């Protein structure tokens, strides 16, 4: 319709004609990849590809559930695993989709920016000869000479108090072209470019970021070195020797659970607060800080989050002579909403055979007919330890093992006098004697532990900036109207006929009204009586 383009969309018409030769083929492939149709296809593929990760358990979130799934689906499980269904977001096919989209995005933003840059500095195109053919059109007759009327039209289009938004106007005596809404395209390009920034930021976080988890019993402290963590998960380019040397001590942990409401809400967690002492380095002064679920501690780029809590019963094991073999607050891991927790106590100093205790800590103990000792509430209403006892070799072949379970391959369970498996049920302060002079075990008291997660993500500020820029660009791209308005004047006796045509990009229900406003503003300013 008009010579210069109003949008910078890649031209879809020429992508389907392959040119001969390898260079031509390459160019054709590139055009395909950067076309809108491909972007659309890749977007849909990305959406579909993301879904399996919400259906099957994912290793990065809960490796235990993946193991359970594999154990119970022996035929399909391994196949799903091979296809990456348990690591969807780090699988090669998911990466392929977003990398293609990334390339397509770059290949689309760069040329479009060039076109837009030129369009912004170019003159709007000449008015087409037949304005009545444009989507919106209006015509009136006003008082005054054609040049004066055209000048008035220009003032109205450009002036702040008039319609104001037509930033570029081109006039050639008897006709005038004006264009508004360049910011729409600018916004759209900012949006797409900002998406690239977000993707880069995510990659930075992945390469240079790390996370570590640590279960810290109250009264203890830990310092930020790899060896202090229960698990540490660094990005491939992290300098693990250069972690910032802060320390955190948890003095007290306050935990509140729902006591009043009934039904499913009863026992739901209400508030977790950890009172901590921190140091940014070994020589820095100690600072008292409060750590809550939504309020992490910050040390430079690293943040300490309170992600979990549980109980650590303090247990003493003595030999037959009353010598203390072990005295420790042993963290137990909660298994359900009422904090029925599992844990193990490993007494490697016991002789002649090593001793291991394995079982449950129950903050509010009761005996369930089906599942044995259970807990009816997550807080300490009736704390108890229910343990079985094993003897033998704790660490066969020195293999690493979880501190919360006992590997019983090389151990045998102790029996009571009736020949049944020995089960101990201890309340705080109670001591149980082990059979045949193996010593005793005492449940001294209960402490809490805080589950701390320490994260460092150097890309997150960039990601947020990119996301905010994308949002602003998007709003501009969707809310601003890109319009072209053409005005032509023609003398009729001593009066002038003004003809106006309008053209918009995309849907623009307001265009007709704009042209009517323009016509009435011209009528008014030329002093024409209606």
């Amino acid at each position, binding site marked *: 319709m008009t010579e210069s383009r109003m949008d910078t969309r890649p031209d879809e018409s020429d992508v389907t004609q392959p040119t001969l030769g390898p260079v031509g083929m390459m160019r054709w492939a590139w055009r395909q990849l950067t076309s809108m149709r491909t972007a659309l296809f890749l977007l849909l593929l990305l959406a579909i590809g993301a879904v399996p990760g919400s259906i099957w358990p994912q290793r990065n979130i809960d490796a235990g559930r993946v193991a359970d799934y594999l154990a119970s689906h022996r035929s399909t499980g391994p196949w799903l695993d091979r296809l990456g269904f348990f690591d969807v977001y780090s699988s090669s096919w998911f990466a392929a989709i977003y990398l293609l989209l990334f390339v397509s995005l770059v290949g689309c933003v760069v040329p479009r920016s060039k076109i837009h840059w030129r369009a912004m500095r170019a003159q709007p195109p000449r008015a087409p000869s037949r304005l009545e053919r444009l989507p919106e059109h209006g015509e009136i007759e006003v008082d005054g000479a054609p040049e004066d009327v055209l000048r008035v039209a220009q003032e109205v289009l450009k002036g702040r108090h008039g319609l104001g938004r037509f930033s570029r106007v081109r006039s050639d005596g008897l006709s005038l072209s004006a264009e508004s809404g360049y910011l729409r395209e600018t916004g759209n390009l900012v949006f797409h470019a900002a998406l690239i920034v977000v993707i880069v930021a995510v990659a930075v976080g992945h390469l240079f970021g790390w996370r570590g988890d640590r279960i810290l019993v109250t009264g203890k402290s830990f310092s930020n070195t790899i060896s202090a963590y229960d698990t540490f998960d660094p990005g491939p380019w992290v300098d693990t020797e250069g972690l910032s040397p802060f320390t955190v001590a948890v003095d007290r942990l306050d935990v509140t659970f729902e006591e009043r409401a009934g039904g499913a809400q009863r026992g739901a967690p209400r*508030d977790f607060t950890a009172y901590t002492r921190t140091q940014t380095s070994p020589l820095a002064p100690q600072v008292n800080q409060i750590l809550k679920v939504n309020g992490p501690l910050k040390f430079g780029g690293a943040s300490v989050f309170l*992600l979990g809590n549980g109980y650590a019963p303090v247990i003493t094991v003595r030999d037959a002579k009353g010598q203390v073999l072990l005295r420790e607050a042993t963290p137990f891991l909660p298994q359900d909403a009422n904090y029925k927790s599992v844990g193990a106590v490993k007494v490697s100093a016991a002789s002649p055979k090593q001793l291991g205790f394995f079982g449950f800590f129950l903050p509010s103990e009761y005996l369930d007919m089906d599942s044995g000792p259970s807990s009816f509430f997550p807080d300490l209403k009736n704390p108890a330890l229910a343990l079985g006892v094993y003897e033998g070799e704790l660490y066969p072949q020195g293999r690493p093992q979880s501190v919360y379970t006992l590997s019983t391959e090389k151990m045998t369970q102790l029996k009571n006098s009736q020949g049944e498996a020995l089960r101990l049920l201890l309340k705080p302060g109670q001591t149980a004697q082990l059979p045949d002079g193996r010593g005793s075990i005492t449940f001294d008291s209960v402490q809490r532990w805080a589950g701390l997660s320490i994260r460092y993500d150097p890309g997150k500020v960039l990601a947020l900036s990119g996301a905010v820029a994308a949002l602003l660009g998007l709003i501009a791209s*969707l809310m601003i109207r890109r319009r072209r308005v053409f005005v032509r004047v023609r003398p009729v006796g001593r009066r002038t006929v003004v003809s106006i045509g309008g053209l918009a990009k995309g849907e623009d229900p307001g265009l007709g009204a704009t042209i009517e406003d323009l016509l009435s503003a011209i009528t008014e300013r030329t002093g024409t009586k209606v």
Partner: protein
Amino acid sequence: MTNETLSQYANLGVYSAMAVLTIAMIAFAIDLAGTAPKMSSDRPRKAAGVAMMLTRLGGLLLVAAAALRGLSVHRPPLGNMFEFALVGCMFVIVVFVAISLRRDLRWLGLFVIGPVLLTLGLAITVFYTDASELLPSLKSVWLVIHVTVATFSVALFTIAFSVTILHLVQTWLEAQEPEGMSRLRTTVTTALPPARSLDRTAYGLHVVAFPLWTFTLIAGAIWAEQAWGHYWNWDPKEVWTFVIWVVYAAYLHARATTGWTPRAANYLALAGYGCILVNYMVVNVYFVGQHSYSGM
């Protein structure tokens, strides 16, 4: 600490809103059934007038119910599925009433109140949760910001969904021969605006809802960063929020891509809404995600 009496009043508000909206819906249906002959004769549409008034009343009742629910728990009523549904329905009606102050939306009433009643019915029976305090992870200003905007944009997507369906129906009816059409079809096609105008309305609603959803996504990431330490962890809820966003982005692309008709693009919008339903009904209830704080 919760106030049982207030939450009882809130439920009463929901029940009365449902009663009022049911009558409004019936009145809208009567109006639509009788529009065809009236279109030409310029007679006032009495039933639609009554329906509009009742819809406003229903909206007020829902606002009151949401406010009472909030007061009963001393926090914004956005902590569980019942509350999302209630506030979402409130937004749908409020937005509908607000737009209808400027534009004639009498044709749309039936198709907005229908889904709202269905949702409220499910909310007060299946999703009902006793008034109670929040989980620690939910105590954050970002809850208010993120969930309010999410619910509001879902409300817009819902209205857009109804209009999109109507667009597809009208497109189909407009392609039929006028002579051979049954009375029902004639009634429907005269009662509704032309397909082009329906399409434009649906697009306009989507274009407002999409940036709000983008904001929801960003605010959710900020909140996740504060609560869990990572702004994005592909939790099922995050996955579906993302999927919804991508599908609607594809819809906007499809509209701008030559070779895609508005009708084809509109199927993508319907798919987007399908994902919203999955996110709300399936993900909240069946998928295991990061919402338990009992342990590590």
